[in-house]
């Protein structure tokens, strides 16, 4: 029935209309329930690889070739072996230090810049705006060759700084902040300024506290991007002592041979911090993507 046929319909009496609406309603509910069923099936399918990895990690290495989900002798031996061996703890530390500092650096520098662009008038303002906008177009991946020479020339390769410093300037973060700041009524900080507060005071005490959603979105995303980055840290960190989790896992990949339980245990350990981040900040992450289309 095409939507345009409504012209031909006779005016309905109220009981007819009610009956009609009720049947349409029932049809719709049934349809919705079918949709839910189909989607649950797909969602379960999507969880299979993760469940299978966990399942494998909990088996003894010798039993991983059994084609079964049932774990006959559940064991944490693989996890214990990995933790005892110790590399993964170093990688955790490296990832945690580099990602936290990168996120903090991004939040601070980007929000200060955005505050200037949103609230202050000065010479070169428009120039700065466009200059930063261009940065959004430059994929970090095209910078690996010159960056390697640059950081090598100041002897920073194989230090945490090699990974932290280049990930701090994030042009898109400036615009996320600016957009948010632009939405905060100017009267608020102008009042404070008339009362004699300096720009920095206004930024710290008035604008930033109001911009919490932007701060957390930028912080979480910078953290996750830095944590998951592979290409640059792979080049910059070759010393196993200070590798980040992805670099470490990519490097030892293959050395486990047929010890599938150990391999999966390392994957599970590598996933764990991000699963936690996801569970804690699920809503913020989803809102951040929906609001800004941030993509790593």
């Amino acid at each position, binding site marked *: *029935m095409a939507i345009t046929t409504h012209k031909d319909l006779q005016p309905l009496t109220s009981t007819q209309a009610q009956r009609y609406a009720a049947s349409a309603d029932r049809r719709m509910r049934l349809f919705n329930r079918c949709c839910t069923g189909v989607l649950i099936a797909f*969602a379960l399918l999507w969880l299979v690889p993760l469940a299978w990895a966990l399942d494998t990690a909990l088996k003894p290495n010798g039993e991983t070739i059994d084609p079964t989900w049932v774990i006959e002798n559940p064991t944490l031996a693989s996890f214990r072996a990995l933790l005892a061996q110790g590399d993964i703890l170093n990688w955790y530390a490296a990832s945690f230090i580099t990602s936290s500092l990168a996120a903090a650096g991004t939040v601070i520098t980007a929000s200060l810049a955005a505050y200037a662009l949103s609230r202050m008038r000065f010479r070169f303002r428009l120039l700065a705006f466009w200059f930063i906008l261009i940065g959004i177009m430059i994929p970090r*991946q095209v*910078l690996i*060759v010159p960056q390697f020479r640059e950081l090598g020339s100041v002897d920073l390769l194989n230090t945490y700084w090699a990974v932290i410093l280049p990930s701090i*300037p994030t042009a898109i973060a400036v615009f996320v902040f600016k957009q948010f700041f632009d939405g905060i009524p100017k009267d608020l900080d102008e009042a404070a300024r008339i009362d004699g507060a300096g720009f920095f005071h206004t930024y710290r005490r008035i604008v930033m506290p109001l911009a919490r959603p932007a701060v957390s979105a930028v912080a979480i995303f910078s953290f996750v991007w830095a944590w998951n980055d592979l290409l640059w840290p792979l080049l910059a960190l070759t010393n196993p002592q200070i590798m980040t989790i992805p670099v470490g896992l*990519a490097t030892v990949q293959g050395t486990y041979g047929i010890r599938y339980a150990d391999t999966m245990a390392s994957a599970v350990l590598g996933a764990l911090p991000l*699963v936690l981040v996801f569970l804690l900040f699920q809503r913020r992450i989803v809102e951040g993507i929906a609001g800004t289309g941030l993509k790593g």
Partner: protein
Amino acid sequence: MASTEITGPAGTVAPARTEPRTTGRRRSPSGTKRENRLSGHGWPGLLFLAPFLVMYLLFIVGPAVYGLVMSFFHTSMVSPGLGEFAGFGNYAEALSSSDFWSALWQTIWFTILTTPPLIALALVFALLAERARRARWFFRLAFFLPYILPSAVVALIWIWMYTPELGLLSRAVTSLGFAEPDWLGDPDFAMVSLAITTVWWTLGFNFVLYLAGLQEIPRELYEASSIDGAGPWQQIRLITVPLLARTTSLVVVLQVIASLKVFDQMYIMTQGGPNYATRSLLQYVFDVGFTDFRSGAAAAASTLFFVVVLAVSAFWLVMTRRQEPEL
């Protein structure tokens, strides 16, 4: 993409000339001392910008310019200095090298394999999720959780899934009565396997964008159309999908660019093999720069890669401008 920031000031009709929104512009440019102090004429503005700009110059713009310069020299990684001037030699070399074209084709092939399913499935899942009143958190968990895992974790799990004879997928395929493909070892099939992994890994991002797009469709449209007798299928076809056009165009461009930037999956799962059948453009840069130590040639290849990405973004901007003049 700084989506809304590219829009002109409120009330502008022609969007061709875009300007950032500034209150100052519309105010009279009177320069009393008090107003100057309040609006931050002079140094304070640049002071606030300085930390970002310094880092930005040092680690983004600087390297970008340095790389561009380097691409015109026979720079080597093992010797200091730029080396001999090469003119367009590095570019000519890349453009006449079959390895470069093969890597470009592998990258495009990967993009072709991943983009349609990543968009179609994300849209279908979002449409289904929209109709499910309950268990939304569960769908978000299932589809989105893989997206924030590191590529290395994803790769390890899928190498295990694809392990010949023992892997879960291998077993699933054989138990359904098919011959098991050599997932990562067959030059013709390896890219398909990588695409399957990538769809599983990154679908959640598009799913979330579509969910957000669906929220913006006014409920009244559905109510009105259902009074007019439209069934659910008609509603999806005639209301939902057309009104999602904007979201779809954003999803497509972000997806194409992300797929072109592929590196991690190939590097870990196939090392570009078998027989270079899955070597992406970024891995070509990586190999030339860090295995052959030819920084100049690698910088030229990076620049070419950048041009490809830029072309996609430019194409998208032109297309969306034409579609919706108000954007």
